């Protein structure tokens, strides 16, 4: 009965979360989306502009943490859930948040990343998602022998090398995580996020 409340973005995000969680015990979850379910807000604003009553369901689901909240309610799970949005650094912000939770003692943290193309009139916003997508992973503190690290440095500008593949930017971190590559550098304004894989 919960599924009726969520639209496409919520459905793909929750599917990723359910599949990743599987039968693992409840753990803190970080939901990360650059723009979230902005289509709902556009609908609500449109209804306001036409002075028609707002849909209570849409209103209740229009906040950034609504999808995560639904996951919590549907599963009766009262673990710590958060929802982050940090522009082009949304995935990095989610992992920083997850590392904070791990350092506070959580044995495992799940990160769920999701976005979809922006509806009119927001298509001109910077770097909207090119396709609806969602992915999730579970993080544990490293035993020291292997794992990943994420560090933030000052950037002197992105290197001028043209990207050779056609994979949209939104998948850069996911590709790094599954590719086994040693390093991925993400330049965002004055910052450089360095992802490293320590085998």
């Amino acid at each position: 009965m919960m599924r009726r409340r969520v639209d496409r973005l919520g459905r793909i995000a929750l599917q990723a979360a359910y599949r990743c969680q599987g039968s693992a015990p409840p753990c803190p979850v970080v939901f990360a989306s650059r723009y979230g379910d902005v289509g709902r807000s556009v609908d609500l604003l449109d209804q306001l502009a036409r002075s028609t009553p707002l849909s209570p369901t849409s209103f209740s689901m229009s906040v950034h943490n609504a999808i995560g909240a639904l996951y919590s309610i549907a599963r009766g799970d009262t673990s710590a859930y958060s929802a982050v949005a940090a522009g082009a650094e949304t995935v990095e912000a989610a992992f920083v948040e997850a590392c904070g939770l791990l350092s506070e003692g959580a044995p495992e943290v799940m990160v769920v990343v999701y976005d979809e193309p922006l509806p009119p009139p927001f298509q001109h916003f910077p770097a909207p998602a090119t396709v609806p997508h969602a992915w999730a992973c579970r993080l544990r503190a490293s035993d020291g022998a292997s794992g990943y690290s994420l560090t933030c440095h000052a950037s002197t500008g992105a290197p001028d090398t043209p990207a050779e593949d056609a994979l949209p930017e939104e998948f850069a971190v996911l590709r790094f995580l599954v590719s086994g590559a040693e390093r991925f550098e993400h330049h965002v304004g004055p910052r450089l996020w360095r992802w490293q894989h320590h085998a």
Partner: protein
Amino acid sequence: MQALEQEIKKLVIETLNLEDIQPDDIDPAAPLFVEGLGLDSIDALELGLALQKTYGVVLASDSKENRRHFASVRALAGFVSAHRKS
């Protein structure tokens, strides 16, 4: 009245996006909320809005009255037929 009950069942299903439920699956005398269909307070607000848009009926904020009107599809049909403006 039976036609109106059928109409309201369709309205409930469409408004609340009840997937996998057909009008005939809804017992007109069964409770809509918590038990029966299992709807909740957000559904009540959404349904109230849909009834207002469709039939021009206005629900007062008196919760006791509303509880009675929203008890079942049959109760809603009775309320709508008594107060409808369209």
